[in-house]
């Protein structure tokens, strides 16, 4: 199972920092997000795409995590040479994170 099966996501950008929300479709999957979608795993899943640290914020009342990823956008949106300078596609990468859920 992938994260995509239990959560949805949107990427935002500010300068060279990307943030990605991860939101449980169903409240019962919130503990799974909390336990399995750690900052460390997210950092590893992006590998060389993210040069800086990854910080996780928790919003339990809406079943959401917010990841803030530093040095993630090729020097910043306005000067990056990347095809996707905003990093808009990064949420789609995060949603491929393997998740272990017994149903």
């Amino acid at each position, binding site marked *: 199972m992938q994260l995509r099966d239990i959560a*949805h996501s949107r990427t*935002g950008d500010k300068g060279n920092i990307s943030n990605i*929300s991860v939101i449980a479709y169903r409240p019962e999957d919130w503990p799974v997000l909390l336990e399995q979608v750690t900052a460390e795993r997210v950092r590893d899943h992006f590998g060389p795409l993210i040069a800086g640290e990854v910080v996780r914020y928790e919003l339990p009342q*809406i079943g959401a995590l917010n990841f803030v990823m530093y040095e993630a956008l090729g020097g910043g949106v306005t000067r990056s040479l*990347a095809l996707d300078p905003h990093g808009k596609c990064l949420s789609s990468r995060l949603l491929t994170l393997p998740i272990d859920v017994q149903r």
Partner: protein
Amino acid sequence: MRTIRIGTGAGFSGDRIEPAVDLAEKGDLDYLVFECLAERTIALAQQAKMHDSNAGFDPLLERRMRAVLPICREKGVRVISNMGAANPVAAAKHTIKIARELGLSGLRVAAVQGDNVLDVLSPDEFVIEDTNCTLGEFQKDVISANAYLGAEGIVDALRAGADVVLTGRAADPAMFLAPQIFEFGWQMDDWTRLGRGTLVGHLLECGGQVTGGYFADPRLKDVPDLANLGFPIAEVDEDGNAIITKLPGTGGFVNAATCKEQLLYEVHDPKRYIQPDVIADFSAVEITEVGPDRVAVSNGDGLPKTGSLKVSIGYIDSCVGEGQISYAGPGAAERGQLALDILHQRIDQIGIACDEVRGELIGVNSIFKDVAATDCAPSEVRVRFVVRTGDMQKAARIGEEVESLYLNGPAGGGGVTKSSREIVAIVSGLLPEDRLTTRFEMMEA
């Protein structure tokens, strides 16, 4: 409890116009807000203003105003927008001209000024956070400096009776917060209400992104009728709690999921969403579906403002040259890779000094590099070769080198495109708010 209705007329400079017209006509709105200013737009607009003192405002202002002003006048909807860009006064004058042509005699248009701080910044004191140097030490050609203004200038203009308020750089949520402060008489140190009003602004500022736009993922998240996406409306009460909704019969939907995605969009620490007027706290926000396309948003909060304003500095950064060419069929990726190898060798041979080089295959590794690589052979790839260099002539050579692959490169390359551009980029820093004054100029049609 009294409520007001605020609609979004645009979430970015190039946004659709029909949904704004629809909202003006049928939204029973009090305010229609157009957010049209991206991070570097104002720097480009400043360049235009340097060539022509009547230029430097949003090029779509004419179309948007012609489309909505007569309806807004008839329905009593007041318009707020940052379409003033680098020249709010010229934007207001132009709006007056349009209003007169449309017979909207007596329409009052305010231009809010004060965000242009190019002459205010001290070269020795202002620190650029991106480079950790002072403005004086920044060895680039600076073309603009604009502070993100808060709600106050807009509130003053509304209080003076403006039907249309045009700003330059203002914090996006502040354009939505201002009418709430004005209508409900909120104090500027009522941090909880300012935080909630900011939350409403944050949810509305990207238009269709809260009504089902930027959300669809077929089979997992199907969204109806995106070609007719409705833009959002907030029904806000005196305490700053709100219902987010949209017009019946329009495409998209408003539900808890669309509101949650937008709640966290471009947010870092949800406890500290730093704005000119308040530090909004979204950490305990509750989002509840209360009817079809109706979502209640409550429990936002706020902390005292920092007293500093973010300033964006626009500068000429570099020149970039780019070329693309496609390969398809068996061996497409291998031929694309060969093309990239040739291009890397060529820029060395012809001696183009590059600060940065990117060679990639669209369809293979252009977005996620090789992190998400698969074994599947793509049926087609597009070579993308892009470099950062010192001048436009060198930048133009890159596209020419890609084009020369037609006759000198791998078999079967097609569809070359080439471009070169000067990059205006943005860095930022903080300015104590007492260093600038916000004021407005009122005009009447």
